[in-house]
């Protein structure tokens, strides 16, 4: 690793394909040892950014460094320090799970004894050891994805790129992959660059997220910071008698930014963090039998939608 800087540093990074600017002046830093969420809609430039960071594409403009190395000119160094699970699992279906890892272990030049031990360790961790002799093409997508994750970690990389690792998996398989990632981040200190559509996943795994759209950075920060920037503080009230008149009365309050009502339940967006007592007392005065009051917060998904709308 070269001195100075974080795991990844982008400065005005751009990549065009003909008239299309897939990545447009991206500037950001990814600290070492963090799980960095890279969020954006389809076609936002997430995969192109990963390909640029792995030295698989040449930047049209700007610079990128990974542990101080330029991926385009020092690609071999960058790829030696990183692992990747890209858009597709990249698992060789004709080979067995063990052979898949054996191949990439040889690629990484891991000594035979260490390679065997590491393969056993990783397949064991992923719950795949007992099925190591089966051809990977006979496996479910979830199992293949876990095998891909094992492959990416085989040579103990300092940074792992994960491009939508749970996309297309069923709930159980996605949950298992998320558990693996959480455990990886907690135990090894490996930097993880994670792209995902799944906001709950990003919220669970990523202390820092960046949101991109049409190739440019929309915002970056912790999920709470993003909420603070884009979302309203919120109070959820449940009770009997929450009719339209009560909702109108709530809307008339100056601290209320908006109200949504469903059967027996209202979600009140506040203009600023505030005590919900005035809301409750107003409703009680209007004859509402309040059974539950809860401070809520916007989900990262709502924050994401708001950001996309603001950036339109």
């Amino acid at each position: 690793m070269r001195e100075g800087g974080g795991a990844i540093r982008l400065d005005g990074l751009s990549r065009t394909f003909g008239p299309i600017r897939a990545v447009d002046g991206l500037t950001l830093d990814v600290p070492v040892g963090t799980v960095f969420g890279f969020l954006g809609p389809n076609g936002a430039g997430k995969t192109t950014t990963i390909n640029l960071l792995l030295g698989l594409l040449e930047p049209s403009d700007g610079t990128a460094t990974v542990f101080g190395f330029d991926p385009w000119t020092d690609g071999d160094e960058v790829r030696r320090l990183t692992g990747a699970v890209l858009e597709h699992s990249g698992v060789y279906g004709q080979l067995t799970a063990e052979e898949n890892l054996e191949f990439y272990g040889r690629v990484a030049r891991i000594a035979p004894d260490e390679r065997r031990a590491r393969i056993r360790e990783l397949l064991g961790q992923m719950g795949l050891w007992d099925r190591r002799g089966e051809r990977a093409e006979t496996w479910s997508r979830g199992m293949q994805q876990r095998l891909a994750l094992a492959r990416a970690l085989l040579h103990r990389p300092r940074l792992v790129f994960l491009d939508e690792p749970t996309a297309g998996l069923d709930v159980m398989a996605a949950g298992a992959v998320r558990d693996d990632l959480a455990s990886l981040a907690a135990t090894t200190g490996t930097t993880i660059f994670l792209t995902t559509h799944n906001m709950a996943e990003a919220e669970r795994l990523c202390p820092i997220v960046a949101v991109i759209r049409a190739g440019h950075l929309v915002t970056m920060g912790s999920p709470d910071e993003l909420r603070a920037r884009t979302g309203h503080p919120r109070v959820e009230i449940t009770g009997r008698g929450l009719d339209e008149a009560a909702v109108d009365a709530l809307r008339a309050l100056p601290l209320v930014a908006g109200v949504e009502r469903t059967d027996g339940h209202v979600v009140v967006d506040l203009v600023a963090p505030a005590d919900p007592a005035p809301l409750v007392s107003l409703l009680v005065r209007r004859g509402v039998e309040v059974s539950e009051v809860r401070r809520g917060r916007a989900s990262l998904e709502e924050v994401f939608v708001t950001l996309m709308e603001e950036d339109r």
Partner: protein
Amino acid sequence: MIRDLLTMVWKEWRSVTRGSSRRQLLFSIVLLALWAVLFPLQMGRDWVTDPVPMGLLGFALPVVVVGTIVPDAIAGERERHTLSTLLASRLPDRAILYGKLGFGIAVGWLTVPMVLAIALVTVNLAALEAAPLVYDAAMAGCVLILALLTALLTGAIGIFFSLRAGTTQDAQQQTVLALMFPMLVIGMGLTALGASNPEFRRVLGDWIESVGLATIVLGAMAVLVLADGVLLRAADRRFRRGRLLQP
């Protein structure tokens, strides 16, 4: 570099042996049945003395085998979505290229002596002559050299078609056609001219006699060596990570 190259060859070998689908198996059996059994049976003792069928074997077999393996190793990886992961590894471009190319060429070339050997057994079993029939050493040597040069040519052409083709099947068909079609046209043209024009046959025969078959064969091989060198160098320059993932 050599270690990386051997790693790539190891993976290709495992993929082929593990992935022996019915289609591949059928393909191998048909090739073997045609070149090692059917044609030698039809030709009898001429199989070991006539340079034409052996020359055809030395050309056609590597074209078909290498033209199947090399495109599958590159276009096939792209089609099966494993190429980008491979490119994201620390393997150098050249190790990937020459590992895949080397494996295809080795298999394509080694098929020829193997088929020649089986064909010899077939001919001997069918002929049942007192003295065993054997190939002329110089002719067999020429066939093996021709097979190697053709395998190299097919591999290099296979790389180019693999980089551009939409599917593995497209790349395989284009590679085999690019080599077989011109030979087919030349062969059919010469046969047609010879059949309809005895004068042409005589002139051609005189020319071959005056120049000498050995000179013609050496000349053809020199052209192949040149073509191999140019195409392999071009493939080496073209096969770069930065170009392989362009949309």
